């Protein structure tokens, strides 16, 4: 039986780590926040593995890809440029916007989770929480991509987006096969690597990772 209290706690903590990853102006601090979130998701996967042992492999893969490789790639990319390019929305307004918006989002999805998920019994409450967290983390990732000017910060946003979906996947489909999980787990890390490789080229050619300076191609 899945330890519901543990998963509940780990899941809710993902919102705080996402918030920290989005709002930290120092890219290395944001990377550490992301690393913490990766460890949380590994914990959730391990907790669910009592239901489907295959998830332990995903937990191990997530540990290598999300908690080791991606933070390492991000760390290397931020060498000598730790401070994020000033975002579109300042810290104060952004924090208020996020707290209000995410509270509404969490409440709405938590209350109405049963509308689109056909689950009854003891797991329903945990599932509702996980789904609400998944949507909230997903929304936070999207917010980071839309409002952050620094290309590396948008990659962190993308990682959050993926984590939100992965949480929904493990919650809604805990009996899923290993092959599908292996595919999902590995391609995130390859995408992040390629994006950071291209961002390295952008830094070299544009002398900046500010996405506003990417204006060679107009509509």
């Amino acid at each position, binding site marked *: 039986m899945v330890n519901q209290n543990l998963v509940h706690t780990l899941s809710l903590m993902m919102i705080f780590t996402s918030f920290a990853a989005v709002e930290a102006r120092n890219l290395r601090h944001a990377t550490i926040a992301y690393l913490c979130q990766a460890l949380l998701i590994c914990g959730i996967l391990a907790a669910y593995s009592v239901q489907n042992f295959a998830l332990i492999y995903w937990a191990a893969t997530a540990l290598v890809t999300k908690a080791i490789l991606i933070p390492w790639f991000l760390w290397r990319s931020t060498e000598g440029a730790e401070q994020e390019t000033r975002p579109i929305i300042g810290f104060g307004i952004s924090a208020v916007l996020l707290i209000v918006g995410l509270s509404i989002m969490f409440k709405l999805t938590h209350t109405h989770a*049963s509308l689109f*998920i*056909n*689950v*009854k019994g003891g797991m329903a409450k945990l599932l509702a929480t996980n789904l609400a967290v998944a949507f909230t983390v997903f929304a936070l990732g999207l917010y980071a991509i839309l409002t952050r000017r620094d290309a590396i910060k948008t990659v962190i946003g993308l990682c959050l987006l993926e984590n939100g979906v992965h949480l929904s996947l493990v919650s809604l489909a805990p*009996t899923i096969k290993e092959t599908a999980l292996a595919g999902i787990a590995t391609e995130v890390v390859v995408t992040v690597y390629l994006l950071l490789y291209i961002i390295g080229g952008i830094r070299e*050619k544009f002398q900046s990772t500010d996405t506003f300076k990417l204006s*060679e*191609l107009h509509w």
Partner: protein
Amino acid sequence: MSREVESVIPALVTILPAAAGVLILCLGRWLGWVREALALAGALAALAFSVIVAVSAFGGETLTSFGSQIYADSLSALLVVLVSSIGLLATIYSLRYMRHQVHEGGLPHTTSEGRLTAYYGWLMLFVSTMLWACLSNNIIMLYVAVEASTIASGLLVAFYWDKRALEAGYKYLMLLTVGITFALFGCVLVYAAGAAALGGHKGLLLSELKTVAGGFPVTTVVLASAFLIVGFGTKAGIAPFHPWLPDAHAEAPTPVSALLSGVMLKVAIYALVRTVSLFFADFSPVAMFLLGLGVFTLIIGDLMALAQDDLKRMLAYSSVSQVGYVLMGFGIGTQLGIFAGLFHLVNHAIAKALLFLAAGAVIYSTGARTLSQLGGLAKKMPVTAFCFFVGAFAVSGLPPFNGFQSKLALFVAGAYANDWWAVILGIAASLVTLVVLVKAARTIFWGKLSEAASATNVREAPASVCAAMVILAALCLAIGVYPRLVYSPLKAASAVVQTTKTHNPQVLAVNIDARNGNR
């Protein structure tokens, strides 16, 4: 009802080009010209096995591999033949074209030979992942394959490694990955609902999901459809999710542009239709929404194409517009509409690949890529001029070219379904396409020789470049003059997309009971 036969052949369709790609990437520096030969062999093998798969599928036998994880029904067979054919032509075209291009720049920290190794390696992986997406019967692996095709093509888009290519590469990878993450969310919701009705791993298989999708809760259908449309729609270049498309298609090396526009968009449309069409039979607003989105896309694409001076960007926007027509066919939702949508999908793949290859030949010979720099090239490049005009007429829908036949089918399907508004807007947009493409063709090939075209070294493109174009031009004409050539495979493929309620009544009843009990 077709018979399912377990076979290794569908798996080989995707494994062989992938193996060629991996070999090239690992051993490329020692291979020399063998690298190109290996790429050609990989592309050729993919086409050969695709044809075998297609012959079986259209003969009523569905080949499957790995316990139905790979599933080659008529729809998949049609797509794999299309992808592998254009893949092979793009590889042939690359032989001379890329040798010329790598000397002008490309991926950093490597020599021209190293760039060629990376190019052919990733090209083969790109083709392989698209083929995998077309054959995947597992809804989560479908997402994985579509995303893998983005990853495999990311470095190809940024290949020239200048400011423009890097910007295009960043936008391409970022926007498509964000988009496709939405699709994963949609796939997870569909799987969760399907697993509740089917139990266990069967909920992953698209062939099983279609038997129970009619019993999904409406909220799941709405949410999953929205996520799938945004996700796969972004990759397909559907407006308003298309901003990455003109940048990527214009900045990638031309054979890659031909693959992106010719087949990658179609693979994304295929993924969209495979998943969203699960709901067509029982939730008709889903198809209606696709119709609206399709018409919106075809208008936006054409209007944007009108304003372009860069030849490849203009063609890219024209692709946005033609994707709109394909979507319009699926959105009409009737069997005839789906037939017409698939027909246009095939025709546009051929004609747009031809236009991109012809544009590449112009760039190869003149070094110029904007319309204002070009003029009077017909005398110096008659084969390219002929092929470009054929492509332009085909995409615009003029007889006797293939685009005419599929657009006619689309408008007839729309009229039968009483979607007159869509038909009228479609015809109007088609006229705009004609103006855009014929004006471009006239500017490039007729009139006074421009400065870029008058240089003494400007001459017809090499034989391998011309060969790929001539084959595609011949196909445009052959299908246009004798459309029955493709009717039978198209009919079989369109029958796979469900438009009527044919669900397994027992499973559906169980699921509906479960739903009611939950309320």
